């Protein structure tokens, strides 16, 4: 194994660990909530294994319990996951060199942090290799499965996630990812528009549409603002981004 390759794998594992730590509690939570809502541990694990999208899994099992029409459950899960359409469009430029089979496998694992890490790596001029991508992806996928089973076994023992403070981990983790893009052109206007847009949409339209609508607000602002001289328009007052 070349040293370049092993450096790639080490980098991916290191990043995968951070993702697994922050997302892990939610896998446990999902397993517990799923069993609480009448799924068997096997069904909960199947859902983690083939849907593999935490927020939508929680929305799904919540609806299973409410006698909601199946098509409406699927539509809700689709709506929660709609942001991935944007991810796979944005990431295209970095993974064009994947073979079709590699793309089929790679897109299956395309979760928020993997997208953000791949986007950042590609943007910084480093080639997003299939080995790096899959190492990072699988190092999050396997813990997600194991912790789902654990949550299912623990069942109601966890109780309220607020009591042990794990409910703050995911928003903070996502905020860390947002900050990683703060040197991009029009970062502040985009974040401002998305933030205001998502809160307004949450209020007037409701969840989960606030994600897509809020994102649309930020993306529209980025499309409308002047694109030339992005460097010169760097917002003032922000520290220069160091190499992570």
């Amino acid at each position: 194994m070349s040293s370049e390759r092993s450096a790639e794998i080490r980098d991916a594992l290191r990043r995968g660990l951070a993702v697994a730590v922050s997302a892990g509690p939610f896998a446990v939570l999902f397993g517990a909530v799923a069993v609480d809502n009448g799924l068997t541990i096997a069904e909960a694990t199947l859902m983690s294994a083939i849907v593999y999208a935490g927020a939508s899994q929680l929305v799904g099992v919540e609806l299973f319990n409410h006698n909601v029409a199946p098509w409406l459950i699927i539509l809700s899960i689709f709506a929660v996951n709609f942001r991935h359409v944007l991810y796979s469009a944005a990431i295209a430029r970095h993974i064009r060199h994947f073979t079709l089979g590699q793309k089929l496998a790679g897109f299956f694992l395309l979760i928020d942090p993997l997208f953000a890490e791949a986007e950042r790596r590609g943007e910084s001029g480093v080639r997003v290799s299939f080995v790096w991508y899959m190492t990072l992806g699988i190092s999050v996928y396997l813990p997600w499965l194991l912790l789902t089973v654990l949550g299912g076994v623990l069942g109601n023992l966890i109780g309220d996630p607020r009591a042990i403070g794990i409910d703050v981990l995911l928003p903070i983790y996502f905020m860390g990812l947002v900050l990683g893009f703060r040197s991009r052109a029009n970062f502040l206007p985009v974040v401002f528009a998305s933030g205001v847009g998502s809160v307004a949409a949450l209020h007037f339209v409701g969840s989960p549409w606030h994600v897509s609508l809020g994102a649309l607000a930020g993306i529209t602002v980025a499309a409308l603002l002047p694109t030339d001289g992005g460097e010169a328009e760097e917002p003032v007052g922000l520290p220069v981004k160091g190499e992570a």
Partner: protein
Amino acid sequence: METLFRPDMVWLIVCAALATYATRFGGYVLITRMKRIPPRMEAALSAVPAAVLTTLVVPAAVTGGIDMAFAILVALVAGMRTGTMAMLAIGWVAVMVFRQFVTG
């Protein structure tokens, strides 16, 4: 022996998985069908990470209660200087301390 899988539930989960996979592949299919990508769309795509991820943070900070807002704010300040793991640790300590001493 206890039931492992019920057919109707497995169907529902498989459909959910297909719907999710469609979102993960769909954007790629759409974008690669275009001959060239206009500059404004390039700018829009490059705003995708910050725009989408922000919608997972700000509503939580605004509607998640004063304790959540406090933790996110503390983590934001920390995040300007440190890495992700430190942000998580500092944010977690902040919310635990806040709940212990302020909101009870």
